[in-house]
């Protein structure tokens, strides 16, 4: 293997010091005249799963997209406040570098129209993590193993990624995300297009990855949030209403709106 993960020593030290991978301070977002997020201050602990829940349009995906500056691409979008990744303000960060540190998995699996192998090797190649064929092979295998897909595709690495099943495609996307060794993985409803069995595989994978990565997941499934995460944040109309240990949120929520939402009294 080539040089190992190139982490910023200051960032590593920052996480080690306070255990926080992502922190937002008074984060607000506007789309044109509409305000999507209002002064959200939230701390996401490192190496664990934080679930973002709330009704449609509450700002959870907008919040997620702020963590790797995907909102930069949205016309008319204004972001104010701070987003700190391992203690560093991401506003001045190089976006390409930022996105190697913060991977993203989307609602619908979106493999590249390339082979399984190339889907995973693409990122490490363009970011210089894989310097030769041997590096790429090693990264592809380890990433696919960690994504729980290796045994299923090892004999079909040249097969197009798009020919895999929906659940396999999503695990391929996760393998692609972890191939560039991010610190944070953002997941935007990663199981919404999957059947219960494939969903179970993804959740199990998240469980296995949580010791190594900071995972932030947006989900509309209360049960998924309760099953997979250690921390849960509830958003409502662009505001962070409550954030706490998942067990507390789902058994003894403090905020009346949180209680009403998780018990299905509005949505």
């Amino acid at each position: 293997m080539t040089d190992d993960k190139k982490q910023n020593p200051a960032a590593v030290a920052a996480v080690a010091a306070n255990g926080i991978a992502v922190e937002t301070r008074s984060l607000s977002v506007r789309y044109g005249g509409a305000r999507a997020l209002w002064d959200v201050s939230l701390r996401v602990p490192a190496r664990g799963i934080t679930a973002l829940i709330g009704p449609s349009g509450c700002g959870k995906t907008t919040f997620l997209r702020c963590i790797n500056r995907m909102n930069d691409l949205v016309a008319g979008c204004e972001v104010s406040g701070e987003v700190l990744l391992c203690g560093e303000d991401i506003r001045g960060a190089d976006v390409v570098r930022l996105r190697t540190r913060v991977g993203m998995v989307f609602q619908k699996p979106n493999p590249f129209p390339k082979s399984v192998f190339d889907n995973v090797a693409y990122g490490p190649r363009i970011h210089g993590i894989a310097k030769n064929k041997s590096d790429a092979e090693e990264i592809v295998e380890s990433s696919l193993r960690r994504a729980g897909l290796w045994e299923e595709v090892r004999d079909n690495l040249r097969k197009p990624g798009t020919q895999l099943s929906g659940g396999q495609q999503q695990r391929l996307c996760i393998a692609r995300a972890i191939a560039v060794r991010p610190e944070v993985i953002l997941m935007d409803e990663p199981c919404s297009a999957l059947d219960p069995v494939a969903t179970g595989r993804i959740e199990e994978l998240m469980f296995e990855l949580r010791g190594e990565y900071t995972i932030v997941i947006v989900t509309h499934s209360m049960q998924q949030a309760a099953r997979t995460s250690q921390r849960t944040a509830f958003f409502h109309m662009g505001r962070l209403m409550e954030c706490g240990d998942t067990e507390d949120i789902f058994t003894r929520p403090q905020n009346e709106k949180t209680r009403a939402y998780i018990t299905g009294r509005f949505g």
Partner: protein
Amino acid sequence: MKAKKTMRVSPHANPAFDRDIAAVAGVLAEMEEEVAGQLLAVSAAFEEMNLSKAWAVRKHDAALNRQLETLEERTVAALARHQPVADDLRRIVGALKTGIEYERMGDYVKHFAKSVGKFVAHHESLEVFPLLSQMAALVREMFAEFRAAKNDGDLEKLSQVWLFDRRIDDACHAAVEDAFLNQRRGDGNAHSLVHAVSVAKNLERIGDKIKNLVEIHYRQETGVALDLEAD
């Protein structure tokens, strides 16, 4: 105590959930009514030393067992269909626990009724009987206060019901002591005295069960345990 009233409950977005919870609550209400009726009936059988009334109480206990089965089916269905959380989950779990307590209370009432049968068979009228009557009245009062506090959603009143159990414990000690004194004096046959002690213990256990109901209901409504031991 900070929380005085139970929480306000608004309907679910999915009305089927409310219907399933109402179905659970309906069975529970029937069981509660059944227990109250059985307590009253066994007290009357004891006061009147009426064998047929005692027998009717014993026979009627099967109704509570059937209701518990229905409650189990409905709670399991609600859990499976809606996967409730927070106060909904506590209500469903609390309903099941409450139903089990009611069913046990029914068993103790049945044992009481069996003892009434023995007293009638031995034509006994022991000195301890008035104490047992008072104890039965206390138990009925405690249960009635539990129902009132629950229906009013009054958590403070509920705590008072919890403390009420001490009166029943004291009454039980007095009754058992009296029964032993009866025995030392050679008053009444041993068999009846054993049954008198058994009635006192059954009533004392019903008091414990009502105390459990208070704890279950308190946790269900607040999410925290009722802890009055330190008070």
